[in-house]
């Protein structure tokens, strides 16, 4: 392999005396192989070009979760990201701190808000009435992917819902919650599902799949969220907008194979909620986008129903069983 020149375009952030952040981009030229990691380059820059460049790092082996930062188009662990995977055709890559969290300096963010969300879900095994003492060989199969989480914050940084809501728990906290809800020994499974069904919890996820795509440890947070939702509905926590919306979908697809968008809104947010949305409805009407109140039955509705019955019979298998990594 041949050594090449690359440009790391790094966002430098500095705290002003009033606590605000002054931000600028700075280019650093480095030389290495296309398999050299971003962390090695950052260390190289800190050691040989600019000692003030600041970033978190510790284990160098993708297990401590310190070095998550925006590299190119998403958040990655600097220690396991090869430069060759992320540079553009000119050998340039942008590096900036994680999103959705306050910046302290250069590539270092304040991790407290992230960990506050983790604390909110009560991240520990709890005694209680739902506890089963037997833990079989397959007890953790369902949560195996979730126990890989190293709390690096990558998912939170790239989460589109966290971008617009400070209160949303976020993918890592929900994945952690799923780990406890699924532990046979956990005593408060139902209480946890009830709490997670409230606002800013598991129903706030918009299922954009960013967290699954970005996670460096293959935790698949969104799949955990989907499983949590299924269990919440099974326990009867169906009063929120999210649950009602999902159940309305379920009802329509099962019945006609198509959505009745005319009544979907009322069924999701209720009469009063719908009145609040009248302004939007008016605009839609002006543009001729109000759907027909009488949707037709989709072709092949029998097959759709058959699929539904299959799903209902084996919900967890179909939804979310973690895919095995196939060797090439």
């Amino acid at each position: 392999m041949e050594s090449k020149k690359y440009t790391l375009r790094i966002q430098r952030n500095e705290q002003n005396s009033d606590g605000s952040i002054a931000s600028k981009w700075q280019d650093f030229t480095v030389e290495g192989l296309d398999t050299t990691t971003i962390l090695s380059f950052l260390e190289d820059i800190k050691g040989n070009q600019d000692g003030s460049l600041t970033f978190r790092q510790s284990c160098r082996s993708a297990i401590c979760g310190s070095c998550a930062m925006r590299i190119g188009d998403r958040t990655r662990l600097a220690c396991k990201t090869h430069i060759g995977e992320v540079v553009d055709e000119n050998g340039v890559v942008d590096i900036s701190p994680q999103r959705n969290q306050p910046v302290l300096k250069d590539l270092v963010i304040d991790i407290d808000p992230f960990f506050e969300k983790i604390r909110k879900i009560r991240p520990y095994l709890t005694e209680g009435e739902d506890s089963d003492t037997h833990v079989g060989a397959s007890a953790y199969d369902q949560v195996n992917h979730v126990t890989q989480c190293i709390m690096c914050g990558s998912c939170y940084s790239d989460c589109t819902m966290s971008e617009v809501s400070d209160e949303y728990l976020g993918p890592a906290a929900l994945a952690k919650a799923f780990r406890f809800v699924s532990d046979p020994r956990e005593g408060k499974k139902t209480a946890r599902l009830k709490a997670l069904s409230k606002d800013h919890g598991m129903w706030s996820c918009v299922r954009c799949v960013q967290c699954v795509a970005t996670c460096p440890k293959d935790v698949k947070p969104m799949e955990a969220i989907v499983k949590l939702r299924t269990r919440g509905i099974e326990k009867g926590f169906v009063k929120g907008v999210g649950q009602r919306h999902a159940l309305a979908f379920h009802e329509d697809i099962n019945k006609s194979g198509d959505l009745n968008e005319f009544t979907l809104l009322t069924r999701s947010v209720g009469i009063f909620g719908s009145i609040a949305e009248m302004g939007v409805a008016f605009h839609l009407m002006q543009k001729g986008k109000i759907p027909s109140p009488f949707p037709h039955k989709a072709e092949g509705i029998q097959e759709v129903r058959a699929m539904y019955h299959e799903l209902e019979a084996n919900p967890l298998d179909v939804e979310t069983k973690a895919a095995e990594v196939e060797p090439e």
Partner: protein
Amino acid sequence: MNSHDLVIVGAGLAGMRAALEGVKAGINVAVVSKIHPLRSHSCAAQGGVNAAIDPADSRESHAYDTVKGADYIGDEDAIDLMCQVAPECILEMDAWGTPFSRLEGGLIAQRPFGGASFDRTCYAADRTGMVLLHTLWEQLVKAGVQVYEECSIIKLSKNSDGHVAGLVLYDIKTGSIYPIQAKAVLMATGGYGRVFISNTNATTNTGDGMALALRAGAPLADMEFVQFHPTGLLTSGVLVTEGARGEGGILINASGERFMAKYAPNRKELASRDVVSRAEQTEIIEGRGKNGGIFIDLRHLGAAKILERLPQIRQLAIDLEGVDPIHDPIPVRPTMHYSMGGIRTDKYGETPLPGLFAAGEAACISVHGANRLGGNSLLDTIVFGKITGERVSNYVKGMSTTPDFPMSDVEECIVEFNNLKHRPDTGVKAVGLHTTVATSINLNCGVFRKPEGLNKISGEIDGWRKEYEKVSVEDKSDVFNIDLLRAWELKNQIDLAECVVRGALARTESRGAHSRTDYTERDDKNWRKHTLTTWNESSQKVDISYGEVRTVGNPDYVPKVRTY
């Protein structure tokens, strides 16, 4: 001033386990950590944790294996204690929610590990340390323990009677320097892998706790015993778990020959780590390696087993070495991994310095003697985190007053940091001096230690100290000044390097991980004793003395020739 009954330094497994004992005892306990607890290097332990939980195994057998593995210089009272309580300590972690891998029927699964006569290493795939660490953090959150996160300790303070009075902290987030008062301090700061240029450790493993304890007057023991792990990745040093050999991985040289049978006919790859590392180094020295390394071959295990049992190892090999172990052998070499030495304690973690306790890799209790067995370090942290935590909690409960904190310590630290930070640019960078120190110790104090190398490096130490006085830093800011912190930490690393080198030069025998080319035999008559290094304030150097090995009179523990 912040004040607590007990301050624990380090939020890895030992520190957090100890903190839970403080909570149980009802004392005011706080933890200080220079990184978030979940970033602690305990998370990088992969393979597992030993405990005789299988009815067919025995605690006595575990203890015997450990005494032998330690090459008869471990303290037998502490080894017996550790192996006796191991099963309960593991089951306690299990009850707190650690997702151990299971057998059909629900028992915790166990795998074979080096130097063990029974398959007694409990594991969670190849991320055992990480899941244990997360479990203890969960319990810490549940208990509401105060953690001073991202704060470095820069001084261990004593009152006028010489009793520990607390610490001076450097808050990394703000740059402020302030005292924290305590009736007792427990050092659980882990190891000092960074002292060696090629190591499996995190870059934050700088041995601060050991170095501050040394400077405060506590002896460090057995610092010359440094474990080289047989399978660090060739280019980065990152760890490939012993579990990879436990699952059946074999070691081969450049021509594909499986060489371990020549060195350890019975246990082969699963001989003790010192034995395997020497075998590898011999292959490399004699020209049968490639690019300074040899290979671990997992291909015959098949994709399914690799993916189930060693998924992380596979990913690390792909990410850091560009090799997929399903298809190719992984290039590895002996790499500095663990410090058997540390702050000298009794079997309850108490040091000779009043009010100072230590646990985990930072301590030398000594359960690992001259060579630690794989799977015993996680156990050490869990067991002695608990025992020392209990002990120190009782200790502070017995104290009627809190020792006066010497505020002049804070002033001195502020001056020291200011001088370092604002020293005019000398062109001498900490990173350059660190490379010099760490490369030299790797070369001269590695797997095999030659007299000329040891003499050479011991002549370099004064030069390093002089050079250190010239180090200047570029970053002048207060917020997250890692440049400054690393420059300061380098002083600690030079202190520890001196302890390692002086101990190794003095010990004219080969035992466990300490292998002299000029004294190739173990010498029980003269050297079955602990090396103690203490800081001499007037000469500004370390002094060496020796201490007895604590024996229990068990006839099985009488030293014999150690073969595998």
